[in-house]
């Protein structure tokens, strides 16, 4: 890396609650954040479980009027952004700040687009509320962050799927190294909504057993969980100058891509991990813990287990937070890197929840019991089913 980049702030809106503490307490207590869905009608769905962000007073985090016109992904993003900036002790100015950037990963503002188009189909064009149109465009949440908080640094939206949250981190690093920004909020957001739940169920991705059991013999899919998560990154020099605490150092990252169609490819994960270790100048033996990106879909678990085994030889401890907090698509790898940063800072190794025995052929060194242990280097992994994979190494110093 051209510069020493560190994580100085975390902003989390999740089904565990608002703020990093509720999220981290859930991880440490191994308390699932998944529950019965009550934000939409699930009567015609088999899977009625998901991770919901409970109603909260967004006005305490988001300045200005008109919150009622913002959709949930935007509200989550704005709140998480504010939390990350506050956590990084980065003051919001009355004037425009062109040194603060945003890199936000998202699949799409699916519910807003669905509702918009549904009105057109059922009631006609004249019934459409014009103010709802902006919410249908994918870069809307990120743009609202800039508008509300007067942040005029570079603003990117990234839609490369399950690894997009870590891709956002890579893009943020690039912005800082290229002197386009001094601080960047990197993260992701997704919304739990009927269209997404229906689609995931049709695709056979949702768990029928009602739990997410990553790498377990009984793994049968995931439960979808909404929320937003940002990590604030800046140079170490900047953090020291500002006198703010550092969660973790970003030692390096790697991208792997292998052609795929709707199936995760272990070679992509292997490539991204190898590239990441090379770039970080870190040997696999120096990695104390791998934060898996897998989600209890058998194909996903097998792909990542294969990659991890190939590089880490079943020695390195492996954890996976999606067993507790569910799958959040574009936001998931942001939640994962935030967890990794918290683990490093506190010296805490979270167990994989719902794990009893490994699936056939899995010989990973699974964290079965949470423990306090000093960690020096951790690797965070993210990958999807269209060939994308990104890995990041975080270190204590």
């Amino acid at each position, binding site marked *: 890396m051209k510069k020493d980049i560190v994580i100085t702030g975390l902003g989390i809106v999740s089904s565990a609650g608002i703020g990093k503490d509720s999220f981290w307490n859930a991880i440490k207590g191994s308390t699932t954040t998944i529950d019965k869905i009550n934000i939409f009608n699930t009567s015609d769905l088999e899977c009625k479980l998901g991770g919901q962000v409970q109603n909260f007073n967004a006005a305490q985090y988001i300045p200005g009027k008109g919150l009622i016109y913002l959709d949930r992904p935007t509200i989550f993003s704005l709140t998480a952004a504010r939390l990350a900036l506050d956590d990084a002790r980065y003051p919001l100015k009355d004037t425009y700040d062109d040194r603060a950037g945003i890199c936000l990963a998202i699949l799409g503002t699916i519910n807003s687009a669905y509702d918009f188009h549904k009105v*057109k189909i059922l009631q006609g064009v004249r019934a459409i509320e014009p103010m709802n149109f902006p919410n249908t465009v994918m870069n809307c949440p990120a743009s609202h962050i800039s508008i509300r908080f007067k942040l005029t640094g570079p603003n990117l939206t*990234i839609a490369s799927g399950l690894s997009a949250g870590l891709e956002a981190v890579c893009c943020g690093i690039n912005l800082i190294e290229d002197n386009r920004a001094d601080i960047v909020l990197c993260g992701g957001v997704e919304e739990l909504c009927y269209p997404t739940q229906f689609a995931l169920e049709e695709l056979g991705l949702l768990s029928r057993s009602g739990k997410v059991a990553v790498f377990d013999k009984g793994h049968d899919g995931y439960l979808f969980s909404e929320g937003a998560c940002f990590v604030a990154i800046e140079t170490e020099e900047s953090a020291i100058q500002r006198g703010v605490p550092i969660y973790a150092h970003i030692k390096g990252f790697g*991208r792997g891509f292998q052609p795929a*169609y709707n199936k995760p490819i272990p070679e992509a994960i292997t490539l991204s991990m190898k590239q990441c270790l090379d770039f970080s100048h870190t040997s696999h033996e120096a990695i104390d813990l791998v934060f898996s990106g897998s989600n209890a879909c058998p194909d996903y678990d097998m792909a990542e287990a294969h990659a991890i085994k190939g590089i880490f030889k079943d020695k390195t401890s492996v954890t996976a937070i999606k067993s507790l907090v569910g799958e959040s698509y574009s936001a998931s790898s942001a939640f994962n890197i935030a967890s990794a940063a918290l683990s490093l800072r506190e010296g805490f190794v979270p167990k994989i929840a719902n794990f009893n025995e490994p699936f056939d052929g899995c010989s990973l060194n699974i964290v079965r019991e949470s423990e306090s242990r000093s960690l020096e280097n951790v690797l965070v992994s993210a990958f999807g089913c269209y060939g994308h994979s990104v890995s990041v190494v975080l270190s204590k110093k």
Partner: protein
Amino acid sequence: MDAKVLVTGLGVISPIGTGKDLFWQNLLSGKSGVDEIKGFDTAEFRVHRGCEVKDFVSSDYIAPLESQRIGKASQFAVACTKMAIEDAHIKLDALDSDRMGVCFGTTMGEAQVFETLTYDYIKKGKDSISECLLVQYPPESITANIARIFNIKGPNTILPAACAAGNYAIGYGFDMIKNGLADIMICGGVDVMSVLAFTGFARILSIAPDFCRPFDKERKGLILGEGCGVVILERDSNLKKRNAKPYAQLLGYSLSIDAHHITMPHPEGKGLAKALKDCLERCQISPREIDYISAHGTGTVANDKAETLAVKDVLKEDAYKVGISSIKSMIGHTLGAASAIEAVTTTLAIRDNIVPPTINYKTKDPDCDLDYVPNEARKERIDLAISNSSAFGGNNAVIALGRYKD
């Protein structure tokens, strides 16, 4: 790394022609791609015109079995990539596929897939929804499909930066090469005609009833279009190895955001001005060196005035000495494809020393008092050009292209 980033291949699918040569010929002749929309029923709208792609036949570029399992945006993107790869004389077998990557921009992604799924669910019920269609929806499938079909294994991502997305993708590709992470980047922008987008723009009264008249006093809004543009970016040392010739050099790019309003640009164009100023500084270009500006020029009252102010703010008196044309006057607003197609256009302007016109220009607007190359293409030496783009949400991206000097 001190690599130079060169433009070595071009591909385009547009409302005035599929293929770079037909597109360019029609652009220079001032051909309009506007017509009554045929792809969906516009009876309940007050506006009825758009810029649809008329001559794209997917089987000319993509095997039928493959076309059946990818959405329309992916088909455009794959076909356009094929054109660009051939245009660059790239022999895929001879290259290291890990050193070649793909980055696209889009506004609506696989919009027609989404709209079909929504319509079918509502009108026919949940049992009508097929898994085969669902897997075509995610935006990441667009760049993934390109990489899969051409076996390209380098960096791969999609940036939905709305109407500035093409330039965002080009900037990403620029950085991948400069940072040594790729030798070739296939960068593009794509959007297909979207009923949802048409509905939205119509409801916020942004669509013109007849033509797109950028910078004209009587301008009444944009005309929605569809299409795809691809530029292949390549490291200069790699090009030398292939013994191939570049079109132009991508000198650099800049990003900004207005932070003003979710749909309206900053009234004084402050965000775009910042991106333009920053781009010139990064590329060490002085305003008087600019020979041509490809405008964002949507034809809305707000954008064209703001863009004019932005250009004047940065270029000062030199703003009056440079031609600024908007090809949206001919191909409409192709959303995520727009700045990619404009990058193709700007590259060809450098190659041929000719700039395309802004057509439908009749009446001067005191708020837009620059030289918009009205109605006729103009021959002039183009060594250095800028392409502006601005988006819903206030995102701006500006790229600078120059004649390559070895």
